[in-house]
């Protein structure tokens, strides 16, 4: 028994050490930085200070925090509402199922930057949509479609919708049909069966979808960066600029730690409400 445990640890140690060295310790380190004193231009004085967190919640950045939270929550809800019926249809598409899934995989695997670039071409002031509307005489001046919260939401939904579709699809697809038949046999209407059987049974997929849509959406910086030219900010933009431009490592670290808290919380929730076999919905 002892030898087995030793064996287990020794086989685990390479990946554990890797994750400790290159993930856990660096994250702890920025946790430390977030409580140090900023001496300007990337200077770190190891003296306790909560300045960075005060700054993060100050009126200057609080707006960005709430904005990111609001936009990413809205995008997540939109993704969920859009994805569920779509995933439901694919899961019931019979012989077309595999083809339809392949059609979801292509945007899923296409790099986010490329997919956002596609929207720049559409939303631009001289873009396809404005050109079309002007040619049709519907508008005489180009609409400012980019540089707006509308563009951010489009970018977030377009970027992360596949993340929502696939786990929900998986949970619907693996649903034991006999439960649905039982519900029907017992006289439940299709609506009732959906609300009381299908929806609760596909909950692990929904939860996984919400987590893997919301977490990247709240922390992404390229959507605002590319679709609003940096005019509108999300917390990711502030972190990026804090580290690369303003050299305020304390602020960047504090905001990263706040994101990290969100992540740990979502894992705890996921582990609490699902069982080990449901983790496949997450990856």
């Amino acid at each position, binding site marked *: 028994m002892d030898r087995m445990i030793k064996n287990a640890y020794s086989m685990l140690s390479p*990946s554990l050490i890797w994750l400790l060295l290159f993930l856990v310790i660096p994250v702890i380190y920025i946790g430390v930085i977030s409580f140090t004193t900023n001496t300007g231009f990337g200077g770190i004085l190891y003296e306790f200070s909560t300045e960075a967190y005060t700054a993060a919640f100050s009126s200057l950045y609080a707006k960005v925090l709430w904005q990111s939270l609001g936009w990413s929550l809205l995008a997540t809800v939109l993704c969920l509402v859009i994805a569920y019926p779509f995933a439901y249809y694919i899961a019931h598409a019979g012989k077309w199922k595999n083809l339809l899934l392949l059609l979801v995989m292509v945007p899923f695997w296409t790099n986010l930057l490329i997919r956002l670039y596609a929207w720049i071409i*559409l939303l631009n002031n001289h873009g396809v949509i404005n050109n079309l509307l002007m040619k049709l005489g519907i508008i005489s001046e180009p609409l400012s479609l980019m540089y707006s919260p509308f563009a951010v939401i489009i970018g977030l939904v377009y970027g992360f919708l596949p993340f929502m579709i696939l786990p929900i699809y998986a949970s619907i697809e693996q649903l034991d049909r006999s439960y649905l038949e039982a519900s029907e046999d017992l006289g439940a209407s299709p609506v009732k069966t959906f609300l009381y059987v299908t929806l609760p049974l596909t909950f692990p997929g929904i939860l996984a979808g919400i987590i893997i849509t919301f977490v990247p959406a709240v922390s992404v910086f390229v959507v605002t960066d590319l679709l609003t030219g940096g005019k509108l900010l999300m917390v990711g933009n502030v972190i990026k600029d804090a580290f690369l431009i303003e050299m305020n490592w304390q602020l960047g670290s504090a905001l990263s730690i706040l994101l990290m808290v969100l992540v740990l919380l979502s894992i705890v929730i996921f582990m609490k409400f699902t069982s080990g076999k449901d983790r496949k919905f997450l990856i």
Partner: protein
Amino acid sequence: MRQRTKRILFGYSLLIFAFFYVPIIILMMFSFNDSKIGTVWTGFTFDWYVKLFSNTQMFGALQNSLYIAVITTVLATILGTMAALVFHRYNFPGKKAIDFLFYIPVVIPDIVVAVALLAIYGFLDMTLGLITAIPGHVAISISFVMFVVLARLAGLDDSLEEAAKDLGANEWQTFWRITFPLIFPGVLAGALLAFTISIDEFVISFFTTGPGSNTLPVLVYSMVRLGVSPEINALSTIMILLIVIAVLFTGRKMISPNKKGEE
């Protein structure tokens, strides 16, 4: 499902597919457009592809991306597979905590990994180059490999291993002759997944590579920041077509109920 519900869902799904594909198709179309402005169609040309293929920066970035992705794949596959074997086979103190640890890279925002690594490299006074991207790439890929291989192991008949041992094979022989061939599809799927994650990864590369060590996504980012150019359309079109080919090629094997692969 009732017929009417089915028809409504069908129409709805068509709309969603249009939402997915219209932007992509317009993007690809304009890569053949004979105009620099890029959003008004003026005529057909292959010029942007010719220009792209004489872009040495692009090939340099592609080479960097492949270099990182290959090393990441090898490391993540070995480490992830070993971890999966342990998780499948043993119960040990701290298993639950370690399980939690393996969830973190799946959910962690890449920007947190990126700035945390940047900070620790700064602390160690390390110069950023190409290889400084690898620790982060591997760290976010290990768990995916582990979970994919673990799923494969879960479907494995343990009696096969027992039979091998009963017939006198030692652990090493049992592993290479029995276990490994059986989990190989899972290991391969995990490796493909690690490769794809690495090739696709932008944020970690953006923060943890040095100047002059652009990867392809980092190059795309800096090109897009400069504005619309048909050359980006051409590059994007090629990348999208490669993905279409890869998806068709791995086809039904790669599509699983799961998000990213698993055979």
